[in-house]
């Protein structure tokens, strides 16, 4: 009776037996203790609480998203480094430094963390930072929901890291296919950590999706019809529509797997009338759109970057919009290409193969439009452009490999091989990650008020591009030679060793790139006085976010802008007659609230309870969430008023392009 209070903690093996995992866990705990004591020593708790933890301001939420995402990116990159090291050394009579089961956990953690917590975090961070500014509004449609989304994301990220110190992590791959992920074959806490950290973060993403769709549809500046909206905002609209339609499927899929594991249901079990292929269908019905959820905003960023740094209007605006929407729709019709070998008829495979190839058309349209934008433009090769050049080169190659894989007959040979791994890394790293890096560099001054160091930024981009080719070029070849994914050891007779060593060297070059980026951030911070942006428009850019001061004040625009054309800010700058500064009115902005933080804390407790079968804790979590929501909705006014006098005081301390024009 009493024993059930402790759930799975009774079963022994709570702490990791691997020294690497244990030291990582201890490292994290030490880091947290150091950070907390630093905050206490410098007496920053009150500041942290008022300025950050309870904030509902989209820019601060964006910054917090990016901080969590970068921490998770470093975690995922360490996992990748371990995989590279293992595969470069674990050949023939030599066995690497990881056991087979630990290797599987590391591979699974790498994929899960990079997609859900690094890429999604950077994406939502950038959208939060930029979107409201770009469409000329003061915040998102539902600022409190936005804060809750972020905290749920952070709770999921924390939960996945707890698995380093308590229990283990899933070794069933980044998408945890059953029957391997069922209780019978994965009896420990690993898969449950995977399920609940993704579920909690995923609900946050779903809420963000609804929030940003509403923001774009209802909060645009006066005069900004949809076809006058900047392309980044369009790409966010496409991406968020995908979130709204795809993430509920993920919620269901994860729930069903959890029901199988905790209540003994038979959705995906090998016996009992379950159907494992249904899981694979469901997870990819979410998973394929997810790829486009990540890459569409990156396309949007490149559209802004290319047109700004070519000092030219974007070529083929309308076709770009249609391409985004075509990709949005098509991305739902191709999920089966992830498992051509399921055993569907060749006609079914042919339909999905052709649908997959069709996606190359709108994507090709976008690539050509960017190149035509550069043609005869006045190009400045700032570091966002270097990322773009790397992207065009690598993404096109990876895309061609993708069209190849879309042929079912070829896929039968190459599925589950390193060729596939190389293909999707090309798409995700050069498409998504390079895009986000370009975006971070581009919008950094708008958030922090100074630019990042250009020279170091370029070095980092070159190291990433060269490192990427070195690390993943060999994987294409290894895939063609028959090497499958998730190999912790292979025979020397395969002749793969040289290629794996080359890939390892590529990984080291990428690591140098990451190192340079870290130095870049520190160096730029120290030298911030020399790169301060006093005009609000450091790149001579085109859209509304650059019309306000850098860093943007908490209310974004003292008076909301009125738009009459595309590239609204460009037109504003070059208009013969300067627009008059309209009379200011009092603003109504959302108040700070800790409710989002509380909801996420309870969600964390709920998740932890579900993982360790501490049912009382899970119940506390659920009741806590319900109580917090009830208190929030029944409490009174959630807005505060900024008077014209306060507004004028802040405005007087800012400078923007009007003062320098």
């Amino acid at each position: 009776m009493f024993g059930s209070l402790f759930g799975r903690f009774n079963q022994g093996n709570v702490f990791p037996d691997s020294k690497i995992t244990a030291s990582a866990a201890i490292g994290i705990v030490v880091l947290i203790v150091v950070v907390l004591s630093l905050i206490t020593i410098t007496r920053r708790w009150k500041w942290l609480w008022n300025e950050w933890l309870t904030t509902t301001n989209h820019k601060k939420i964006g910054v917090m998203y990016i901080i969590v995402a970068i921490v998770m990116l470093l975690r995922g990159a360490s996992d990748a480094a371990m995989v590279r090291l293992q595969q470069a050394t674990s050949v023939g009579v030599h066995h690497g430094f990881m056991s087979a089961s630990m290797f599987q956990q590391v591979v699974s953690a790498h994929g899960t963390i990079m997609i859900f917590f690094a890429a999604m975090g950077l994406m939502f961070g950038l959208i939060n930072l930029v979107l409201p500014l770009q469409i000329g509004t003061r915040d998102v449609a539902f600022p409190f929901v936005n804060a809750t989304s972020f905290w749920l994301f952070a709770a999921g990220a924390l939960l996945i890291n707890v698995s380093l110190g308590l229990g283990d992590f899933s070794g069933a791959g980044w998408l945890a296919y059953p029957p391997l992920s069922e209780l019978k074959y994965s009896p420990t806490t690993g898969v449950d950590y995977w399920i609940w950290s993704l579920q909690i973060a995923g609900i946050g993403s779903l809420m963000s999706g609804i929030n940003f769709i509403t923001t774009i549809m209802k909060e645009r500046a006066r005069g900004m019809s949809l076809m006058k909206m900047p392309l980044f905002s369009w790409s966010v609209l496409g991406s968020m529509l995908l979130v709204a339609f795809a993430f509920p499927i993920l919620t269901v899929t994860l729930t069903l797997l959890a029901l199988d594991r905790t209540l003994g249901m038979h959705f995906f079990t090998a016996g009992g009338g379950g159907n494992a292929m249904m899981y694979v269908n469901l997870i990819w019905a979410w998973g394929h759109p997810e790829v486009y959820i990540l890459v569409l905003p990156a396309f949007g960023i490149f559209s802004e970057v290319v047109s700004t740094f070519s000092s030219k209007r974007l070529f083929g605006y309308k076709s770009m919009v249609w391409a985004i929407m075509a990709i949005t729709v098509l991305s739902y019709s191709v999920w089966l290409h992830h498992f051509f070998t399921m055993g569907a008829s060749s006609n079914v495979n042919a339909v999905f193969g052709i649908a997959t190839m069709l996606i190359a058309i709108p994507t090709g349209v976008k690539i050509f439009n960017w190149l035509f934008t550069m043609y005869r433009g006045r190009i400045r090769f700032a570091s966002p452009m270097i990322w773009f050049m790397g992207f065009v080169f690598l993404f096109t190659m990876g895309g061609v490999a993708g069209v190849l894989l879309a042929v079912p007959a070829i896929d039968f040979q190459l599925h589950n091989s390193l060729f596939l791994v190389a293909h999707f890394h090309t798409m995700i790293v050069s498409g998504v990650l390079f895009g986000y890096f370009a975006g971070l560099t581009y919008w950094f001054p708008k958030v922090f008020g100074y630019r990042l160091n250009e020279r170091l930024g370029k070095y980092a981009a070159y190291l990433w591009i060269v490192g990427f080719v070195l690390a993943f070029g060999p994987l294409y070849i290894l895939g063609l030679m028959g090497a499958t994914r998730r190999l912790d050891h292979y025979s020397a007779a395969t002749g793969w060793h040289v290629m794996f060593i080359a890939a390892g060297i590529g990984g080291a070059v990428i690591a140098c790139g990451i190192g340079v980026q870290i130095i870049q951030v520190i160096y730029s911070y120290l030298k911030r006085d020399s790169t301060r942006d006093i005009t609000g428009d450091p790149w001579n850019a085109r859209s509304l976010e650059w019309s306000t001061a850098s860093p943007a004040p908490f209310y974004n625009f003292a008076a909301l802008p009125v738009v009459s054309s595309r590239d609204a800010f460009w037109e504003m700058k070059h208009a013969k007659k300067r627009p008059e500064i309209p009379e200011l009115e009092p603003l109504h902005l959302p108040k700070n609230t800790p409710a989002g933080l509380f909801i996420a804390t309870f969600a964390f407790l709920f998740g932890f309870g579900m993982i360790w079968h501490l049912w009382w804790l899970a119940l506390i979590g659920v009741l806590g969430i319900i109580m917090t929501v009830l208190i929030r909705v029944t409490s009174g006014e959630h807005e505060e008023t900024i008077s014209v006098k306060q507004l004028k005081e802040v405005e007087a301390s800012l400078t923007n392009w009007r003062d320098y024009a």
Partner: protein
Amino acid sequence: MSEVETAVITKVTRQTEQHEADNKTLFGFWVYLMTDCVLFASLFATFAVLHSNTFGGPTAHSLFSLPYALAETLILLVSSFTCGLMILSAQNKAKRLVLIWLGITFILGAAFLTLEIREFSDFVSRGDSWRRSGFLSSYFTLVATHGLHITMGLLWILTMGYQVLKRGLTRITIRQLTLMSLFWHFLDLIWIFIFSVVYLISGGLNI
């Protein structure tokens, strides 16, 4: 501009802002309902795939009682009707009527939930629980997810009763009542699909 004029203009802009806020919340809620629709669609899909995977256990035909499910359906339909009457009263600012209709809706919703739980416990006591087969797993999950939504709806009705009692029919409470009734009608709609797909097609006609 005189001070009175400024005050009037400020008031008018504030009202426009509030109207836009209502509009925005309604739009956002519709988007949420669409995502919930996708959630149920996924569950319907799993039911469609697994409904004949009885694994030697009971089939849908032998398990379900159509009159029982019809009773549940009628109760929920009537509750949707009373919920509609509640919104009409809210628009007429009839606070007492709003509370009465809220109460009746709550009682009907609770009656529906009780019937559902009785049905579940009946199946479980006969040994036909969610552990029995893939079909029963998908049946319990689909119907219970709807039941969970109904539970949330009941909680929401209670909250709204408290809000209307405490604050009366303000702009904000009317907005919340509107959202709540949307939610309730949505659940009714989902139930119509459950009744048709689970009880009628799968249970009654024994396909």
